[in-house]
Every structure is written in C-alpha cells, then in structure tokens.
C-alpha cells in the first residue's frame, strides 16, 4: 500500500481503491449478503413487508423437502422430495458431462501439445475456436434441430437402415437426461480442452521420451508422467465444466424433455413464475453452497490452489 502511494500519489491510489471497493463490496459481497438475508424471510405482499409476519425462519429452505416423489436410483425404489431428486440428478449428470468432456478432451489436448507440429498449432486452435464464438444459445439450438423428431438424425439413421422407427431423442434412450448430457458435453468440451492443453504444453518432452526409452508402455507414460503434470489443468477443466453444466439453464430448457428437470430450472420457476424471490434465494443459496463444497473437494482431491483453477 505504501508502495502504491509513493508511485501514484494519494489521488490515483484512492481512485484504484475505490474501484476495487466498489467491485468487491457493491457487486460481490453485499448482493450475496442480501441473498443470504432474504432467503430466511417469508414471501409477503408489499404491504406486509416489515410487518409482524416478516420474521426469519428456515421455511424457504424446508420447501425443498416437500412433495415426495416415487423414483428409483440404480434400480432401488426410493421416495424422495422432488426438488431433492432434481438436485441429485443435476449433480450426477453434470458429473457425467464432466467425465465425458475429460475423456474426449484429454487425447486431443495431448495431440495438440505433443504430437501436432508446432507450426500448425495456431491454425488448429483457430479451427477449434470457431464454435466457441457462436453463442451458446445457438449451439444448443443446433442440437435441437438435429435431435427433433422429424430431424436429420432420425432421417439419416433410417436412411442407413440402422433404425426403422423414428426415435424421440429428447425423451432419451437410457434416461430422460440423454439429450441434456449430449448437448452439455458438446457445449463445454472446449472448456476442458484448453486448460489441459496449456498444462501439457509445459511438460518437457524429454520426460516422455525418457519414460518410453526405459520401456514404459504408453498407458503408463500417461498415468505416471503426463497426467500428474497435467493435474492443475485437469482440475481447472473439471471445475469449469461441472459449474457450467450444473448452472446451465439454457441447454436443459432448449433440448430437455418434460421429464428431465435441472436444478436451475427449479430456481427459475420460483423466481420468475411463482415470483417468490425469497424461496428462489433460498434455493440458490443451497446451490451456491453445493458449488463451494464441490470446488473445495476438487482442490483437495487434486491438491491444487484456487489460483491454479481460476486461470
């Protein structure tokens, strides 16, 4: 701080500090505090706000436990509150999306970092970047066009004689979340690719060659040399993809079936259709807490710091 004052004087230093304070306080801390505070208040008509009914309680949070719903988890029948079920589904299928993107992106990241010729890299990266510039809404819409009942996928498969009847892809084959998983994987796979690519680039190729010269089979070279080195990139990619998937509202709404509920959709319904902002706040607090727990878990699991993840 002394250093700043000496270099830029009182005036400029206070401008810097004011900008930072505005950001941290007005845009980050106070809004989250407001959400926290409002989530404990009941949803009341304007005239009753501040009245005798306006007391703090956990009522909004306990709404997530309402409405038991018969369901099965891995074949075991259970009765779960419907919103809890939605929450668990969201977490599970987001994890699945994260896994798929990792499996798709890792070989490609390795190819870009170590196999492709360095001179062609800028061109290859540009090719990969093109879909990123097309907005997410349109990318989801592209899959809507493909998966729709009378769409090209059914037509192509029927033309090839693979299937006889059109399939309702949006209702899913394995689970009702198939379409959501497919499209989320498509939308976010590049968020997995780039951190891993950056991490592998910094690995000295001699290490890979040394492992190979010493007789290590390819899978062990990856398992013991490349993957440990790429760990911060993998952690970063996993956190990004999981967060984006679990927080996506657009993709589930555009391609999801009516049976597939995503937790952000539940929050949006409270917020926008029921106009119950307080319960919406309570639900997003739950969601936020889950996200924080996930990030901390990943940091522990991969033994990385926050500064490694947010790059």
């Amino acid at each position, binding site marked *: 701080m002394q250093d700043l004052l*000496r270099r*830029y*004087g009182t*005036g*400029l230093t206070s401008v810097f*500090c004011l*900008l*930072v304070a*505005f*950001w*941290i306080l007005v*845009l980050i801390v*106070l*809004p*989250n505090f*407001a*959400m926290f505070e*409002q989530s404990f208040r009941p949803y009341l008509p304007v005239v009753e*706000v501040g009245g005798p009914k306006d007391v703090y309680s956990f009522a909004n949070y306990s709404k997530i436990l309402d409405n038991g719903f018969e369901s099965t988890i891995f074949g075991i029948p259970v009765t779960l509150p419907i919103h809890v079920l939605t929450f668990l589904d969201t977490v599970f299928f987001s994890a699945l999306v994260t896994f798929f993107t990792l499996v798709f992106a890792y070989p490609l990241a390795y*190819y870009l970092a170590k*196999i*492709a010729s360095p001179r062609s890299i*800028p061109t*290859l990266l*540009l090719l990969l*970047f*093109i*879909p990123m*510039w*097309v*907005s*997410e*809404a*349109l990318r*989801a*819409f*592209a899959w*809507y*066009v*493909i998966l*729709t009942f*009378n769409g090209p996928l059914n*037509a192509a498969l029927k033309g090839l004689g693979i299937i006889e009847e059109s399939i309702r892809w949006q209702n899913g084959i394995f689970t009702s979340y198939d379409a959501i998983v497919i499209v989320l994987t*498509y939308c976010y796979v590049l968020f997995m690719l780039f951190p891993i690519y950056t991490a592998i680039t910094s690995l000295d190729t001699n290490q890979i060659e040394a492992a190979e010269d010493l007789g290590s089979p390819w899978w062990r070279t990856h398992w013991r040399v490349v993957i440990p080195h790429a760990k911060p990139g993998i952690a970063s990619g996993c*956190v990004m993809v999981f967060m984006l998937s679990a*927080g996506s*509202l*657009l993709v589930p709404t*555009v391609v999801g079936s009516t049976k597939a509920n995503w937790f952000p959709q539940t*929050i*949006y319904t409270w*917020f926008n259709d029921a106009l119950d*902002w307080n319960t*919406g706040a309570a639900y*997003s607090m739950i969601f*936020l807490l889950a*996200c924080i727990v996930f*990030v901390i878990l990943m940091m522990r699991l991969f033994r990385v710091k*926050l500064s490694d993840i*947010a790059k």
Partner: protein
Amino acid sequence: MSRNRAILGHLYFALFVLYLLVPLAVMAGAAFNDSKLPTIAPWKGFTWAWFGDLWADQTLWGAFLNSILVALAVVALAVPIGTAAAIVLNSISGKYRATLYGFMVAPVLAPGLVIGISTVLFWNQLGRSTGADDFFLFGRGLHLAILGQVSYIAAYVMLLVLARLQSFDPGLEEAALDLGANHGQVLRRILLPHLYPAILASAAIAFFQSIENFNVTLFTKANETTLTVYVFSQVRSGITPKINALAFLLIVLTLALALIYEMKRRRRARIEAEREAEARRAEEAMLI
C-alpha cells in the same frame, strides 16, 4: 509406432473438428429450407424467405442493439475495475493478498444465476430501504444485467492484467519519479503503455463474454432483452427458421473473421521467417 500414433492423432483431431462443426452446418443449412419447422430433412426446396423474416423482425434488431450497448457498458466498467484491482493486488503481499484474490476470482466460479439473483435482490432491497422503490435503477432491467456481468467479467480483466504486470519493471517508475514526473505521468506514460496489450485483449474478452452472457441477463432483465435471451425465448416458444437465418449470418461472420485473422497471421509469420533467413545469410556472409 510413433508414426501410427501421429496418424491416429490427426484422425482424432479431424473427427473432433467435424463433431464441433457438423451441428453448426446443419443449423445453418436449415435456414434455406422452405419448411415451417427448422430442419434440413425433409428438404422442401430452397428459399431466401427466412432472411426476409429476419430482416423484418424489429424486436430482434432491438435486442441486438441492446446486446451491443450492454457489452460496451460492461467493457467501460470492467476494464478500469479489473486493471485497478490488478495494480492493487500486485502491490500487496501475504495473507491479505490471498483473501482479496479469493474474493475477486470467486464470481468466475459462481454460477451465473446466483450472480443474477443476488444482484436483483440487493438493488431491490436498497430501493426499499431508501424508500425509492419506484426509481427505475432499483428495479430489474438491463442496467442490473450490466452490474451483474461486471462482477465476474472484471475478474477476467484482473487476471490478464495481473499476468502482464509480472513482466513489468517497477524500476522504470522509480526512474520517472526521480526525473520529476508526476504521479499521473507515471501511470499514463510508463505503466499503462506496458499494460495496453493486456488491456486491449481483456476488453475484447469482456465484450464477447457480455454478448454471450445468458444466465445473469435472464434473471436481471425486465422487458428489454438481449440477443441471447431473445434467441432463447424464440426457441422456447415455437420456432421458425428465422433463427437459423440469424445463425447462418453469425457463422459466416465468424468464419470470415477467422479467415482474415489466419491470413494476417500467416503473412506476419512469413515476413518474420524471411527476416530471420536474411539475418542468417548476413551472419554467414560475415563469417566468410
């Protein structure tokens, strides 16, 4: 062995690019199908009609303009905030730095809808507690979308500028001060010129992040919408291939920009290679 692997790699890359591009091509193709539903099969004949529809859609162009304005406002706020944050962060160390850094990058990882909801609730409450409920600034609207977006986009700016600051030599500022420059001059003539590449890059990123943004905008907007939200609402409520026509135009624009960028890069690379070759020849000539 390693040649096989390289071929496998090329193949995988080609398949991957195909996987990324085919859905976009299908979507763009449907813009020319004379069918009420956006699809390429069955093909009912070629038409330009959807582009006419697109042109006539006033709401869409309004939303497009809104997107640009919001993005410009986000750039105008996020770039100074992020730059100031990087400078402040760079000048402190230890425990406070880690805490401050944590606060700054947290919104990047936070889900967009949480940012949106918390922003709306905060300004709403502020309006209520100051008794100015009806004052437009406290209600939902695009101005709150701007503030919500700035809260996490500023972090991208901060990260980029902070990285650039690592290569800055503070001795230059010392020298300028010793030679009698005032504080404003030190900032304007010494520090900022060094940071400009990072600031420009972060401004571009901030602009596109804002255009792309969906979650924050959906929760904070009132009646006025941005392009992404408009496309979303169109897709949800019975779509026409008008959106495909829009997608086609955007994809063509993207491809054109990518092509120009690639050609410029190649020309630069060629000039550099020639220069290097010349230098090498000159060196060899000297040795002889």
